[in-house]
Every structure is written in structure tokens, then in C-alpha cells.
């Protein structure tokens, strides 16, 4: 050590040592910033967004109309949709658009459908999803939106592919 340099004088060094002690004694009396994770959870922000979720109408039917926009826009190709007709029975809550364009009236009686296309399967691979929110932004029916469940863990890669059931329920 070059003791001739001014910053290496004994006075300067012992001053700095005391500054170090002061710093640690200050943090000693501060409240810890960590918390007991599985038992306490961090309060997430209101605009926090994690993985996508599927929204449903009040009667429990999917809002998704299988327009494939989200699958198209998804940059990491995490969404896989198969379209098909899903029988939800006769009673439905009509969406604003259905009320407006009277699409249900044009159906043949006894079809057992709400007159809209629905996805027969809707898979999101959570291992591919990058939570960018493009699908939420592009969705015309507000059927898909970003949820706030950040605790996703699975044992195999296949479990990471969430179907309709899981995407509705798990958030």
C-alpha cells in the first residue's frame, strides 16, 4: 500500500472505517425490506399484468369468438386456437353488439347456439408467453386480458400449456 498518497493516510482510513460502521448501524435499525414470501405476498400494483386470462360473460359463456386475431398478433406464437361451435343452450346474455345488429334473430330456431363462433380449444403456452399484452390490446371482444397471477409453476412442459378451463379458472 502506498502510504504517501493522501487517501491512504491513517486519519483518512480510520475516518472511512467509522463511516462504514455508521452505515451498518443505520441499516441495523431500519425495517427489513424482505418478507416471508409464501405466507406474506407482495401487494401488486393495480396495473400489474402477468399472464393472459380468458374472460367470460355473466352467464358463464366465453366471450371469445375465435377471430384468431390474438393468435396472429402473438409475437412468440404462444396462442393456439381451434374454432368450432360450442353449445351454450338457448338463454344468453346478449352482448352490446348482438343487441345492436340483431344477429341472434337471424338464426334458425332451435339451433342451440348464440349465433357466434366460439373456440373449441384455446391453448396458451405459458412457457412461450412473454406477457406483452398484444393479445389483450387487439381483442375486439375483450375476451382476453392480462391477469395478475404470477405464481405459475409446473413439473413438465406439457403442464405449461393452459387450456380454456385453466385460463378461465386459475386467475
Amino acid at each position, binding site marked *: 500500500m502506498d502510504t504517501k498518497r493522501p487517501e491512504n493516510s491513517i486519519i483518512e482510513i480510520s475516518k472511512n472505517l467509522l463511516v*462504514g*460502521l455508521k452505515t*451498518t448501524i443505520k441499516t*441495523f435499525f431500519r425495517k427489513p425490506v*424482505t418478507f416471508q414470501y409464501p405466507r406474506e405476498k407482495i401487494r401488486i400494483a393495480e396495473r400489474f399484468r402477468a399472464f393472459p386470462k380468458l374472460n367470460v360473460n355473466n352467464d358463464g359463456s366465453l366471450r371469445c369468438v375465435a377471430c384468431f386475431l390474438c393468435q396472429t398478433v402473438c409475437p412468440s406464437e404462444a396462442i393456439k386456437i381451434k374454432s368450432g361451435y360450442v353449445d351454450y343452450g338457448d338463454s344468453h346474455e346478449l352482448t352490446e353488439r348482438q343487441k345492436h345488429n340483431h344477429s341472434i334473430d337471424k338464426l334458425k330456431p332451435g339451433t342451440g347456439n348464440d349465433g357466434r363462433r366460439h373456440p373449441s380449444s384455446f391453448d396458451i403456452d405459458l412457457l412461450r408467453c412473454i406477457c406483452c399484452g398484444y393479445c389483450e390490446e387487439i381483442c375486439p371482444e375483450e375476451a382476453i386480458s392480462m391477469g395478475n397471477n404470477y405464481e405459475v409453476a409446473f413439473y413438465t412442459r406439457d403442464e405449461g400449456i393452459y387450456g380454456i378451463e385453466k385460463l378461465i379458472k386459475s386467475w
Partner: protein
Amino acid sequence: MIFWLIAEVIKILIVFAGLLMAAAYLTLLERKVAAKIQNRMGPMEAGFHGLLQPIADGIKLFFKEDIIPWDADKFLFLLAPVIVVIPALTTFAVIPFGAPIKVLGHTVPLQITDVNIGILFILALSSLGIYGVVLGGWASNSKYSLLGGIRTAAQMISYEIPLVLSIIGIIMIAGDLSLANIVSEQSHVWFIVYQPIGFIIYLIASTAEMNRVPFDLGEAEGELVAGFHTEYSSMEFAFYFIGEYAQIVVNSAIIVTLFLGGWQGPFLPSVLWFLIKVFFVVLIYLWLRWTYPRLRYDELMDFGWKFLLPLALANIIVTGFIMILINK
């Protein structure tokens, strides 16, 4: 005679159990202090705020597989941890931890034995602890252990000298080597007032003596895995740990006895005063540990030989001069 024997055995048992408990709970205290300093919570799972953590750790270590390296010198390998623990525990024998009490008409000094060369006894035993480290490092037959052992030996030898010299001032003022007399000399003024430099030198040198951060070159985990106890597992490892933490308690007790007036203090019972002071000195050691980074090896040697040793010598000379001046 019988009474004396029974009293002695009871005192030994209390001190022994107390030291072991203190060493165990010091691990928890260390982790808690570290956590507080780093804005964490520390162990919280076992018991209330982790109070059962040392017991859980002890049970875990007890049931771990005991691995002895194939090439190790088995006898020395097993002997080394014992050599670390026993001097650390034995040193406490001469430390008075309370005012003499009266039991059944007999006066019982709260000190296992009042040797009239108490300080020399402490110094002799505390330097024995090195052998455990060096032997352990050598007997493991591993490069990391050997390096750790060699470093520790060099470091302990160089810091032993300022450690001893820093106490000389105390001996000069007290005029006695017996710890009981040194404590009773401090009934009015603690020796830290007369010997502030000696106190600081002793604090630093004893930190180095105990192989603790910032002087833990012997077990520098960044470079040497774990230094001299790299190959140790199970209870042998636990022995090193107990020895290390018992040394902290004992060294704090020595500091309290020599510099901070021992068990002297108003209002509270003397044993309680002793415990409070020891606790605070232990906190100082922990505080130092979690503040400073480890020194480089040449810096460590420079610091010991070029700074602490001259300072300790100057301290002795100045103390001598002042004593002569005052006597006139």
C-alpha cells in the same frame, strides 16, 4: 473441603453448559444481526423468529454422514477439532463472572479458579487454538485446507504479538496478573479510560486471532472453499463451529474483564452486569464482521506488523511515562 469441591463442580457445570449454549445461540444472533444489517429478516421458520434454529442445526449436523477423506491422517484429522474447542472452553476457567457470593456461611468466588497468573493462562491457552487449525488443515490432505492452515498459522502468529502487547498496559496499571484483582482494581474507573488504544488494539488483534471477517484469510470462502475445514463434515465441522463461537464469547469476556470493569456495576446483580457487557462486546464483534470486507493477505500482514505492533509498543512506552510522571 467437600463444600468447596461441590461448589467447584457446580460452577464448572454452569459455565460449561452456559458457554455451549452461548456458542450455539451466537450462531442465531450472528445470523439475525447479519440479516438486520442487510435489511433482511434472518431465520424465521424454526420456532418464534427462529429461536429453535440452533437446535435444529445441531440435530442436522449430528445426523449428517461423517466423511473422512481417504488420504487424510485419521488421528490428527479427528484430533484437530477437539484441540480447537477445548482451549476455547478452558480459557473461561480464570474469568471472574460475578462478585463473590455467600452460600451457607462460606464465601464462594464466582470464578472457577483464581490463578495468580490468570492473564498468562489465557494467552497460553488461546494460542493453543492455532494448533487445531493448522493440524486440521494439514491432516485433511487437501490443497485448500493446507493453504488455509498455513495462512491461519502465519496470521495468528503475527497478531498474537500485538494482542499480548496491548494487555501489558493493563498489567502495568493493575500491577497484578490475577484477573480477580484486575477486576477489583476497576471498581472506580474502567481500564478502557486509561487504555483506549490498548482496547482498540486488543479488539482488532483478537478479531484476527479468532479468524473472523475482516481477517478470515484462513477460511476465505471466495478463494479457498472453506479453508482449513473444507474436508470436515458432521460433528467435526460442528466442533470447529462451536470452537469459533465459544472463542468469541470468551474473548468478549476477556475484554470485559480487562477493559470494561468485569462484573462491576451499580444496582443490578454482578452476574447480570457481566452478561450485559459480554453481550455488547459480542455485538461489536458481529458489527465489525458485517461491516468490513476481507483484507488482502499482504495488507493483513502489513497491518499487523507495520501498524498494530508499533502502535502497541508506543502504547506501552507512553503508559510507562505517564505512570512515572503521575507517581512523582
